[in-house]
């Protein structure tokens, strides 16, 4: 019987990646290679003001002095940065796209395959979608509705031209261009991304959502997102990610910066399903992402929720700097690694203000030969009176050849702090499976039910319509993945 069970698992694990199609359109691609000319080309292509070019060049020059970090629990093939193309745009003048009708039908078809019919989905779900295809934002919906309440939701390229003051004030203010190897590279060559500004006292009437997609082969995607929530405002933002199948690895190095002013709240949710590579570990996205939020004002709150099921390698630590008094940081994470996927993910909660509190709930699931690490820092500064942190890190193992690791770091410089950390590691139980099956559930249904139960604390933090999507994604990634 054991053998049979393993076969079921094998079959289920070998389920094919659903989004592995390639869109055949002409792209405007820069030849591989990185130098100052490339940085100038990108800036010029986007008609950027002088200050942006200067900032990019500073970043590029600094990047030349840096080396990749090696502290993560990851095995990474060396990346040749001269073999990557740093700019790819669908042909035609991207700036001329005024409505969905102007968009290449093949692009729209691609979105359909991804399950994002822009017209319907946006209206039915009440979601405004800013779709980023390779490096250029091609369509933004619901702009009017948002415009009425003063919310700015556009591509970052557009924001750089239209709102240079906001960009100059906030871009790089949370993740400085010198921050780390990948963030610095991103600062030099980022091609597009999203920009959100919520004015004072405004509760954004829609969930804002961006779907990113890497399509052209051998191009890295370096998107940059900046969200500013002015005093007393609220916004919920979701990003979803998929990429087609390629034999070779592709680099994705994004930077996301969030700024919450006094009494503002930002909820940022990610469902990441970049191509994970095949069952032998061939191909897949290298996902090196720097996400950080600053609770600048008193009583502000930033909440990160992430469902990470894709990518060959995931390296990301969505963090919160709790500067304002009584500010709140949250991190809810589900990370799944199957086959030869590797994830080193977690968060940093930096307590600086008084009465600040943070919550960390991390659920790691490892199957196949997957390696799953939680890495988290809780830091309490000398002035952070009465800081509170609660961390819970649970790992679930679904096979004998996978691994789960927990690396919690704690730096407390104020005696009034209360910091709690709980961690558990368990293997999906044969007893649990047998119990479910004896009640008539199939093995696949039983596994998916047990895993979803394990992830429940995190899923419930997702906006409703995306919670369902996340559960489905887990089912596809996991059916029968036990051994």
């Amino acid at each position, binding site marked *: 019987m054991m053998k049979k069970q393993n076969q079921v698992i094998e079959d289920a694990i070998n389920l094919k990646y659903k989004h592995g199609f390639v869109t055949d359109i002409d792209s405007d691609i820069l030849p591989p290679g990185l130098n100052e000319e490339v940085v100038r080309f990108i800036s010029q292509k986007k008609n950027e003001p002088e200050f942006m070019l200067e900032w990019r060049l500073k970043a590029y020059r600094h990047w030349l002095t840096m080396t990749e970090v090696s502290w993560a629990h990851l095995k990474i093939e060396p990346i040749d940065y001269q073999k990557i193309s740093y700019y790819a745009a669908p042909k035609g003048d991207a700036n001329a796209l005024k409505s969905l009708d102007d968009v290449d039908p093949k692009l729209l078809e691609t979105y359909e395959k991804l399950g994002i019919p822009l017209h319907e989905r946006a209206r039915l779900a009440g979601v405004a979608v800013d779709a980023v295809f390779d490096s250029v934002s091609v369509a933004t919906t619901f702009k009017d509705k948002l415009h009425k309440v003063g919310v700015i939701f556009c591509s970052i390229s557009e924001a750089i031209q239209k709102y240079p003051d906001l960009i100059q004030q906030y871009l790089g203010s949370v993740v400085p261009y010198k921050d780390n190897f990948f963030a610095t590279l991103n600062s030099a060559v980022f091609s597009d991304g999203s920009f959100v500004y919520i004015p004072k006292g405004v509760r954004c009437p829609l969930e804002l959502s961006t779907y990113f997609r890497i399509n052209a082969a051998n191009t890295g995607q370096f998107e940059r997102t900046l969200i500013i929530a002015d005093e007393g405002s609220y916004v919920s933002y979701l990003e979803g990610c998929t990429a087609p199948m390629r034999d070779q690895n592709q680099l994705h190095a994004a930077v996301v910066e969030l700024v919450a002013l006094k009494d503002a709240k930002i909820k940022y949710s990610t469902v990441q399903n970049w191509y994970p590579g095949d069952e032998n570990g061939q191909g897949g996205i290298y996902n090196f992402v720097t996400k950080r939020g600053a609770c600048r004002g008193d009583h502000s709150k930033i909440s990160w929720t992430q469902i990470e099921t894709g990518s060959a390698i995931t390296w990301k630590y969505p963090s919160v700097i709790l500067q304002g008094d009584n500010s709140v940081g949250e991190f809810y994470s589900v990370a799944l690694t199957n086959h030869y996927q590797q994830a080193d993910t977690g968060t940093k909660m930096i307590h600086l203000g008084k009465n600040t509190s943070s919550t960390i709930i991390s659920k790691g699931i490892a199957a196949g030969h997957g390696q799953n690490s939680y890495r988290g820092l809780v830091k309490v500064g000398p002035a952070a009176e009465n800081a509170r942190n609660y961390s819970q890190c649970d790992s679930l193992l679904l096979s004998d050849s996978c691994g789960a690791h927990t690396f919690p770091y704690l730096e407390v410089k104020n005696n009034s702090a209360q910091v709690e950390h709980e961690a558990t590691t368990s293997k999906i139980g044969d007893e649990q499976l047998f119990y479910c099956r004896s009640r008539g559930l199939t093995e696949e249904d039983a596994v998916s*039910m047990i895993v979803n139960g394990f992830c429940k*604390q995190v899923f419930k933090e997702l906006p409703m319509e995306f919670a369902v999507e996340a559960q489905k994604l887990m089912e596809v990634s996991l059916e029968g993945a036990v051994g």
Partner: protein
Amino acid sequence: MLEIKNVNVSVNQQAILRGIDLSIGKGEVHAIMGPNGSGKSTLANVLAGKPDYTLDSGEILFEGATLNELEPEQRAVLGLFLGFQYPVEIPGVNNLYFLRSAYNSLQKARAASELDALDFIQLVKEKMKTLDMSEKYLKRGVNEGFSGGEKKRNEILQMLVLEPKLAVLDETDSGLDIDALQVIAKGVNLMRAPERSIILVTHYQRLLNYIEPDYVHVLINGKIVKSGGKELALELEEKGYGWLA
């Protein structure tokens, strides 16, 4: 209903059951008694199709068809139910959702109509009343943080909802106080019907004061050493198992 023919079972290459023969007719209640380690639970688990329990030889027939190669979920579809001695916890999975998934999964496999959430909750609430179970258990995770007695009640609730043809109850009475025992017995007695059979696996005669069996079998060292009517249970209560070994 159930024919067990010369069944030999080993777990981790250790022989546990050695030549079990047992015949259970429709509507009958059989008690299987025996000392610790005699193989009672193994028998219950083998009937439900637990993986890693190897059927070395023999045959198990359910309504004339062999169960030997069937997966646990296929046996459930045929109408077999195992009440666990130690029901596991499934954290984060809502008890009501679990029960409805199981119910609908069985209905689907039997090409019968599935119940929507509203109809199902009516059905469950009705059954819960007979077990004096608070509805708060529906909102909690499956067996999550339940006391021993609550877990056993939850097992009986599942049985009442899933309405199996053959219920195998493994030490359902262990760890229960007298009040809980009576409630459980009430649930089991409600299930007694001409077309339904029940196997009670138990250590003590106590349960049989409340659920009167038609037959009693004594299992020692993997073999049925004695069978008889309900009076055999009383004899065991008096003499213990030593005289049969």
